[in-house]
């Protein structure tokens, strides 16, 4: 115990230096509520320290590589619109916010032409200009007590996206939040923080996309998004992680959905060396529907952890979890599907499916359902499969003249397609489909027993 305490203190020391510096000059430093939010969160982080594999929620994911590293805040950098172009989805988008090393870049962003009743701004701007719009929601949902990474993000909360959709307003095209990190002289951290508020009977789709530009340096994106969906609101959230393999990405999506709301979370994990994708919806009003859909593709020594925590807090709600994993080389995937049904959440209908393909002997998947049911009239099902590419299917395709490599690619695409098909936004779907195709293409080109390095390089070239 004593040893851990010492290490924890050392770990916290560099964060304390960062925080002391940050706290003075942070946006909204003079706002009492915000200052308290940050300071309480930092205190909580210091108390908890980074989680270890002894904790049930982190059993399969060792974050000591993050804990041991001394990170400095990512520095300001400029990108050209040419550099940006390759990262943007084709098709119509409602707005694009670009963040370079965690900072909003107004020149690269595009927020004009939004429908009336829709606000899309950087969180920093919003804190400076209209802090009163934030106080009600910001930090009220994401759990700093339970999760040290959320606490750390909240302590360093400074920039990110603010999206507000007024009652009854429909935003058809997706809003893109593009987080790009550039090469830095040393390990650098950003704490993207997004607040999405969709009022009653509104509709919105937001896509968070994390990518690296240029060379590889250790980058840590510690992101938190709070998505508040009102009554009968339809909201979609997309997460894309495609940073280079030296990146750490810990993302938390906390959804709070009201009565008869319909919310979907879609995730695509392609990049990042160590990735934790937390999705935590709370079905807080009666008759809500929630879809939690995701795909993770691991190669090299990637570690891709998906931690789902679906809370049924009201009666007559339905939740569907579908996660597919494809793991090659020495990659390690995790699917942790926790469903909590509160005492009063009768007639809950919760379903969970996790399917995995292991492409090499060294690839690994840990899949774990966890059902905690305190109501007595509920339907909860879960299922997981782990398999290889089916030899019969492969032979069938080859017997028609399709090469083995191409046949494998088709079968992997088909497996991925199950998840892609559930995505409602055509723009997001096509963007994601394109990324998957590109990713599988380089997988196919890379020698099968290649090291992570080769894959990393191929990834760079594929961009």
């Amino acid at each position, binding site marked *: 115990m004593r040893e851990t305490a010492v290490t924890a203190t050392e770990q916290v020391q560099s964060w304390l230096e960062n925080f002391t510096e940050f706290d003075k000059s942070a946006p909204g430093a003079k706002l009492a509520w915000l200052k308290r939010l940050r300071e309480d969160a930092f205190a909580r982080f210091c108390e908890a320290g980074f989680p270890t594999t002894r904790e049930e929620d982190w059993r399969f994911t060792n974050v000591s590589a993050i804990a041991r590293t001394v990170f400095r805040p990512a520095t300001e950098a400029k990108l050209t619109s040419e550099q940006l172009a390759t990262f943007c989805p084709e098709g119509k988008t409602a707005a694009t916010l670009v963040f370079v090393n965690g900072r909003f870049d107004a020149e690269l962003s595009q927020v004009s032409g939004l429908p009336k009743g829709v606000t899309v701004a950087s969180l920093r701007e919003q804190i400076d200009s209209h802090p009163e719009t934030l106080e009600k929601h910001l930090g009220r949902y994401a759990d700093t007590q339970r999760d040290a990474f959320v606490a750390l993000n909240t302590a360093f909360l400074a920039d990110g996206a603010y999206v507000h959709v007024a009652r009854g307003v429909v935003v058809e095209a997706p809003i893109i939040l593009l987080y790009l990190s550039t090469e830095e002289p040393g390990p650098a951290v950003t704490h993207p923080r997004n607040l999405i508020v969709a009022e009653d009977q509104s509709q919105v789709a937001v896509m968070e996309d994390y990518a690296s530009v240029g060379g590889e340096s250790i980058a840590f994106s510690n992101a938190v998004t709070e998505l508040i969906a009102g009554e009968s609101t339809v909201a979609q959230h997309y997460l894309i992680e495609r940073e280079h393999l030296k990146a750490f990405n810990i993302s938390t999506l906390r959804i709070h959905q009201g009565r008869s709301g319909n919310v979907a979370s879609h995730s695509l994990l392609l990049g990042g060396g160590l990735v934790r994708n937390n999705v935590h919806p709370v079905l807080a009003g009666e008759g809500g529907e929630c879809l939690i859909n995701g795909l993770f593709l691991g190669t090299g020594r990637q570690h891709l952890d998906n931690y789902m925590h679906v809370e049924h807090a009201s009666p007559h709600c339905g939740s569907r979890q579908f996660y597919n994993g494809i793991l090659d080389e020495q990659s390690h995937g995790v699917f942790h599907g926790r469903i909590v049904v509160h005492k009063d959440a009768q007639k809950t209908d919760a379903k969970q499916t996790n399917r995995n393909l292991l492409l090499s002997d060294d690839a690994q998947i840990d899949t774990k359902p966890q059902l905690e049911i305190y109501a007595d009239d509920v339907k909860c099902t879960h299922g997981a499969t782990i398999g290889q590419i089916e030899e019969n299917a492969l032979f069938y395709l080859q017997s*028609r003249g399709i090469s*083995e490599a191409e046949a494998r690619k088709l079968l992997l695409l088909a497996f991925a397609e199950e998840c892609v098909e559930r995505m409602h936004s055509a723009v997001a779907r096509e963007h994601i489909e394109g990324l998957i195709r590109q990713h599988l293409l380089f997988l196919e080109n890379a020698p099968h027993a290649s090291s992570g390095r080769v894959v990393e390089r191929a990834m760079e070239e594929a961009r």
Partner: protein
Amino acid sequence: MSLLEIKNLHVNVDGNEILKGIDLTVNAGEVHSIMGPNGSGKSTLAQVLARRDAYNVTEGSITFDGKDLLEMKPETAACEGVFLAFQYPVEIPGIGNTYFLRSALNAQRKYRGQDEMDAMDFLPLFREKLALLEMDDKLMNRSLNEGFSGGEKKRNEILQMAVLEPKLAVLDETDSGLDIDALRIVANGVNSLRNPKRAMLVVTHYQRLLDYIVPDFVHVLVDGRIVRSGGKELALELEEKGYGWTETPQAVGARA
């Protein structure tokens, strides 16, 4: 030169010898039927011709169109013109029928140095073949064989064959599980593809299919060996007497 020459073919599956010295010669334009009881090795022969690697050839040779077939991967054999209509076509969710078939055709065209066909060029050809097999094009918007009935799957096999236009078509129990209407449609499809340049190897347990696809030669396969060869009347004889009488050691080699 014959299109297909099988000489003294021995094949092991999981350490058991299934084919014990097959000799068979098939010329372009001919339809041969391989008949035999269950477990005689008919399907093994079909799968070996399509180059399934779980089947281990221990002895003998197969020459296809002057080339060593045993050196080929399944996709190469297909590109060279071997087509296997599967006994149990595989369902593959997530791969569209039409997309799959065009990919297969283009893979073969590319192999032969021909230009790939785009969706616009492909469509008329595809529609023509669909009509031939009396298939609903709604089926084609679905995933490959997914949710197809037994008859639809078999028709889909022949549809693929019609599009890919192989030199040698191997039909593995294509009649099994078909009602008489479906059987007629499938047989029509197959017959329309008969031509002087194409050979067919029809593997079947029952004589019924051969009423519709009339073979030039019939071979009886029992316990991994061809025990009788003859004309189409041999099939009728088998239908009457069953396979029992062929199992006496009066085996004659295949037609030279």
